[in-house]
């Protein structure tokens, strides 16, 4: 039975077309996956279905729901549908809740708005909805900031399903969450479809999730529906070239040549702990201190490619900052090529570089690429080559990372995310360091671009004989690009060893849960 049918839906914002002529049907109890890379228009499609497009947008086409065209019904009537018949869950649980209202109040709002129950029943209904989404132990009088990200997402889901809507639109509901939390939330969503017969429109960029839980998939690219069908069939046939490209990027292993490691230690981290002082302090008492990194030791040998896996808040960023000398360790020491590292030692700084996660925040938007890339030369001090030579090196480096040498005169906003990450790599390489730290360097990138960047990293490090520490929350990335790896949890290293071994045969329970939770393409595809 078709619950919702969309015909020729087009949306433009400020005269700029965002989605063009999208048509699809949603049947009862189905999980429809809407997928595509960033900018493909999947979120806008969802908002169009909800009638919540941003200011200045125009939509055309027909959205048929229960015999009515949602594009035509009045705003007050649409309000009666939202939350009751069609509800939505958003990507960012951290900001999706009103910070100054208790969660119970926010959940009950859906009930009150649609006059679903008598006031004296409200409490029970809220409790029931919270129990349903797995918040059995949480008091409804809590405020959002007192909950973890996963718990908040459950609150948002509770608000969305407490009136048992026909359709639940979930817009990247797990992207902002840790992998272990992600699988639990996905299970919950799946349950709604199976047990309660709620039709789900799941928006995600992750093809593995699509393959695992959806009944039907729609693949969008630049506002156009390019491929659709049952996931099993779509992924097996890979008839559309774009589908094929995406699929191989998500699943393919980067070619990775194993090298012989020398015994020589490049970086030696010994028993390093880092304490943070909490800001909550009294007038007379100092704040209690929180241990972000606890007794961590690690070595990186010359030519070694080491991975560090951990979920958010595990202390990996603090560790990076400590290694980079931006943060001082409370105890332990760090040696580079056998010499203890102090914060200001330039001999060390010129041999280490870093690539950060956010391609948008990594560059000063007011400087030209040429200046941005040559910034690391500053570490060389008087040894730095003259400016003209720096420019030549910069141009060469840009070519190495696959950009034209004219880019040197451009500003950073003229580049896409992937290109920016290439520039970041060029910047890291420009002074030929011995060690590079990649801090979640590909996490913000779309899957097809991610595989390109990973390949570039792999190629370049091989060519320059670099060692690196690759930090990521994503096991599949680590698997593809490191030979050894460490697993970190709550500031401690819980497991270490060869990446292959760890992934195949984890010793630690936490590592195991990480591996199990990571979405993988189901076996039916490999058959």
């Amino acid at each position: 039975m078709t619950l919702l049918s969309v015909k020729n839906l087009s949306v433009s914002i400020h005269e700029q077309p965002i989605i063009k002529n999208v048509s699809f049907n949603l049947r009862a109890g189905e999980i429809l996956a809407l997928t595509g890379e960033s900018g493909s228009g999947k979120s806008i499609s969802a908002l169009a279905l909800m009638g919540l497009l941003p200011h200045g947008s125009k939509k055309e086409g027909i959205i048929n729901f229960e015999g009515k065209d949602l594009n035509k019904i009045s705003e007050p009537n649409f309000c009666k549908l939202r939350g009751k018949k069609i509800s939505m869950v958003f990507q960012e649980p951290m900001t999706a809740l009103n910070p100054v209202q208790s969660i119970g109040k926010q959940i009950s709002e859906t009930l009150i708005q649609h006059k679903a129950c008598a006031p004296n029943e409200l409490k029970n209904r809220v409790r029931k909805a919270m129990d349903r989404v797995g918040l059995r132990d949480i008091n409804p009088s809590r405020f959002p900031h007192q909950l973890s990200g996963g718990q908040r997402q459950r609150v948002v889901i509770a608000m969305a399903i407490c009136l048992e809507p026909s359709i639940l639109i979930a817009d990247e509901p797990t992207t902002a969450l840790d992998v272990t939390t992600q699988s639990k939330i996905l299970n919950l969503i799946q349950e709604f479809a199976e047990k309660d017969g709620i039709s789900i429109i799941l928006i995600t960029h992750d093809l593995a999730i699509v393959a695992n839980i959806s009944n039907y998939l729609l693949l969008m690219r630049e506002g156009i529906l390019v491929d659709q069908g049952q996931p099993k069939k779509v992924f097996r046939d890979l008839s559309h070239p774009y589908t094929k490209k995406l699929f191989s990027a998500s699943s393919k292993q980067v070619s990775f040549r194993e090298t012989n490691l020398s015994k020589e230690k490049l970086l030696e981290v010994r028993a390093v702990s880092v304490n943070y002082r909490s800001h909550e302090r009294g007038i007379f008492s100092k704040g209690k201190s929180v241990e972000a990194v606890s007794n961590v030791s690690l070595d990186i040998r010359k030519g070694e490619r080491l991975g560090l896996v951990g979920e958010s808040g595990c202390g990996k960023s603090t560790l990076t900052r400590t290694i980079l000398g931006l943060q001082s360790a409370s105890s332990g020491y760090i040696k580079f090529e056998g010499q203890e590292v102090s914060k200001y030692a330039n001999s060390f700084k010129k041999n280490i570089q870093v690539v950060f996660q956010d391609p948008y925040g990594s560059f000063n938007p007011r400087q030209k690429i040429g200046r941005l890339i040559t910034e690391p030369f500053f570490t060389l001090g008087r040894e730095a080559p003259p400016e003209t030579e720096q420019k030549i090196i910069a141009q060469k480096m840009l070519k190495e990372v696959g950009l034209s040498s004219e880019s040197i005169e451009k500003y950073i906003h003229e580049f896409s995310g992937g290109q920016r990450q290439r520039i970041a790599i060029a910047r890291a390489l420009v002074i030929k360091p011995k060690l590079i730290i990649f801090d979640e360097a590909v996490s913000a990138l779309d899957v097809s671009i991610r595989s390109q960047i990973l390949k570039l990293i792999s190629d370049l490090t091989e060519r320059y004989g670099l060692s690196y520490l690759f930090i990521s929350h994503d096991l599949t990335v680590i698997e593809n690009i490191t030979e050894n790896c460490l697993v970190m949890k709550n500031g401690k290293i819980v497991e270490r060893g060869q990446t292959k071994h760890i992934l195949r045969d984890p010793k630690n329970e936490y590592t195991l849960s990480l591996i199990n939770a990571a979405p993988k393409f189901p076996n039916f595809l490999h058959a």
Partner: protein
Amino acid sequence: MSPICGGHNLTGIFMINYFFRRLFTFVLSLALASIVIFSLVEIAPGDPASFMLGINAQADTIAALRAELGLDQPKISRYLAWISGMLTGDFGISYTYRTNVTEMVGDRLWVSLPLALYALLLSTVIALPTGIYAAAKRGKAGDFTVISATQIGIAIPNFWFAIILVGIFAIKLQWFSAGGFSGWQNGVLNGIASLTLPAIALALPQAAILSRIMRSALIETLGEDYIRTARAKGLSSWQTIWAHALRNALIPVLTIIGLQFSFLLAGAIIIEQVFYLPGLGRLVFQAITQRDLIVVESVVMLLVFAVILVNFIVDIAYMLVDPRLRQDSI
């Protein structure tokens, strides 16, 4: 900062702790302010005794008066006497008026405080609805009208506006008196009537500023994710504004209202001059020209105290409005 530590006890302890920390800086600021004020006033050239006795006075007469006023004491002991007096609520005796400063300030506050509150009320009553309206209608004609009006409102000097108000409503139409204050003992309505024109003159630019801040705070809040969440629950856009956006948007607005209050209390000097109101501003202005040092010091200190107190209250009020602040540090 860990997300799940917020038991009620902990929160309570934190709040008390926070309160005392703020109190500490509050007192420190006051102490610093008192030193600054005292030094500023002391280095001002001009002697209260010579001022009072005029051009025919003899040197011994001036010396006698200086002794009578205590001006022959060393600066440090005068400062300490002033501070310890203030702490016990005794602001000293005015050099020129020869009356208790506490009483004098008290009398003036009966004009300045109602005037400030009246102007603040007017400005809030005008600004909040227009700001909310403009935010709700952003990009449309209504928004344009409000924005244009506020732009002009900000640009008009309030004393200039005051002169025009007097010209129209006091001299031409004779609806209101041109100034002065009839006193509360002649009836509350009388008092309010004599404060109406000054309050309007003071409120206009304040309302324009507040309206703009209300608008932009609300627009910013309306862009938050939780607004979309609320809309997805089925709330209409007006319901969303009332139930979710307004309370969050009110936080910056509250700050500005706090600042405006202290500004209105102290900044009405020119308006008080135009309407010859016996308010605090005119008192301090007059005291400066007459070198009535003790009055200047005490009133300025009182005004600074008011501002710091309002900030303190606003800070504490934040904590009550925003549950996050009860735990996180600021």
